[in-house]
């Protein structure tokens, strides 16, 4: 079953473009990465799902129901972690979390303490006194305490130290193993690569690619580095070779095409070292954005 389904979802802010004709599905239980640079429309898309804003045209369904019409009902099962978290002044962490929990039908107390433990969050401090990273932790607990079936993460790791990031990813994986569908928006590709099954790439408000993350890496370019004595980069001047450059006495390039052709070319040399690897998502991504 598709947990999220969008049909030509479009949002203009007056004349300014938000997103245009966005159509894709997110299946139950997957971790869907939503990639794009700042201003591409990632947050707009998520805000539309949460009916914080309304579409100019097109529609989206969540759990098979229209996300605007059934928004309040759907949000019982939705968790949201924004990129920046802001809270009411003068409240203690525990009071805010209890207020947050009070909106849901189920009892959230136990899960709240559990999550606060994992995140090493001091519940008795005032939110105003917390550091940015700690406020973020409040956001994480707040977004998860009602055990949602669908999670929206909008650039969630900004402000978390690497250790906390690892804890956080662990938490997200555990949620996912319990069957939670995760919509993960980010411009940090390494984290998407670590976590996601499928990605959608958005550019200037339009989806330009939806693909399995491995397909995306495999079907594309190979990253090849060859080191040999007196090697002239021009030697690899052949179809399918891209971004040929000299690097620390070796030659580096991206190659797309029949791998045998390039292997034969390499075997004509007396090499001191050869590496052939998948490009990182970053490198694939740059290709989409050029």
């Amino acid at each position, binding site marked *: 079953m598709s947990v999220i389904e969008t049909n030509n979802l479009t949002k203009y802010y007056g004349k300014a473009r938000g997103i245009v004709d966005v159509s894709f599905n997110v299946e139950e239980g997957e971790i869907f990465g939503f990639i794009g640079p700042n201003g591409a429309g990632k947050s707009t898309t998520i*805000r539309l799902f949460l009916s914080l*804003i309304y579409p100019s045209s097109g529609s989206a369904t969540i759990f098979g129901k229209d996300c605007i019409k059934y928004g309040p009902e*759907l949000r*019982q099962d939705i968790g949201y972690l924004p*990129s920046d978290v802001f809270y009411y002044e003068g409240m203690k962490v525990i009071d805010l979390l209890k207020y947050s929990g009070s909106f849901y039908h189920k009892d959230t107390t136990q899960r709240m303490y559990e999550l606060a433990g994992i995140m090493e969050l001091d519940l008795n401090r005032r939110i105003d006194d917390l550091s940015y990273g700690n406020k973020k932790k409040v956001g994480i607990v707040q977004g998860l305490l009602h055990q949602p079936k669908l999670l929206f993460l909008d650039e969630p790791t900004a402000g978390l130290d690497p250790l906390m990031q690892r804890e956080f990813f662990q938490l997200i994986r555990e949620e996912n193993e319990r069957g939670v569908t995760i919509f993960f928006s980010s411009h940090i590709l390494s984290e998407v690569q670590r976590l996601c099954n499928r990605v959608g790439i958005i550019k200037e408000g339009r989806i330009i690619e939806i693909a399995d993350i491995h397909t995306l890496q495999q079907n594309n370019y190979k990253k090849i580095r060859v080191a040999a004595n007196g090697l002239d980069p021009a030697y690899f001047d052949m179809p399918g070779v891209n971004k040929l450059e000299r690097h620390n006495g070796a030659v580096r390039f991206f190659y797309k095409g029949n791998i045998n052709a390039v292997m034969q070319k390499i075997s004509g040399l007396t090499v001191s070292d050869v590496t052939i690897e998948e490009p990182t998502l970053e490198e694939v991504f740059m290709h989409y954005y050029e």
Partner: protein
Amino acid sequence: MTMSKNIFRHEFKMHLRSVITWSVAIMAVALLYFSIFPSFSQNAALLNETMASFPPEFRAAFGMGDMDFSTVLGYFSFVYLFLQILLSIQASNYGFGLVSIEERELTADFLMVKPVTRPQIMTSKLLAVLAILSITQAVVWASTFGFINAFKGDKTYNAGILVLLLLGLIVFQLFFLTVGMVISLLVKRVRSVTPYAMALGFGMYVLSAFGAMFGESKFEKITPFKHFDPHYIIQNGHFDTPLVMVSVAVIIFSVAASYWLYVRRDIPAVT
């Protein structure tokens, strides 16, 4: 349009400190004015004479057009104006802040991704502020009656008219609350609530003062300072009903428009 108890409770708490401050301020102003009533009323003849020597436009601007300092209600009409200014700013403040503060401080996202409808949020917030304003009103009524009786000496007054004046203050505050609310929803973003509230409160006062200074004007018909003009109420013993209906109509329209706008509103993102 049902209310959420938890939002109501939260909103009520958020306003509690503010309403305590306002209540203390209102009580202090009332005490200050009423405490000098005995000396004013004793020298009323002299004072009335002095006042008469000021240009009538000047007197009109300060709501002292044909005020008689020697009577309780005459003196109260002067205090009434100050109470009106305070109460208008307080109510506008709450009106402008009702939904805009959350958007400016970016807590709106927190609330609106919860399983509640927009009308539920609006109703809960509105009722919470109404409860808060009732506290203010209780303080106004208690201090007015309390201080008048403490300082009136052997003078008497018509309690019915005093009640009428105080009832007027309730509608008066609702006007500023709801107008502030609808304006905050018409503009894209309210950067700071206080300047808006001051502008609305003083703006309406100035409209009424200009009206009093330069004679009848169409503009003064829209200001509640005119709708609830104490002189009219004291002289006639009843409200200027058509003008009060203007206030009531504006309130009803503002509430309806606010719901309409809020339900359709795009909540701006963090920028």
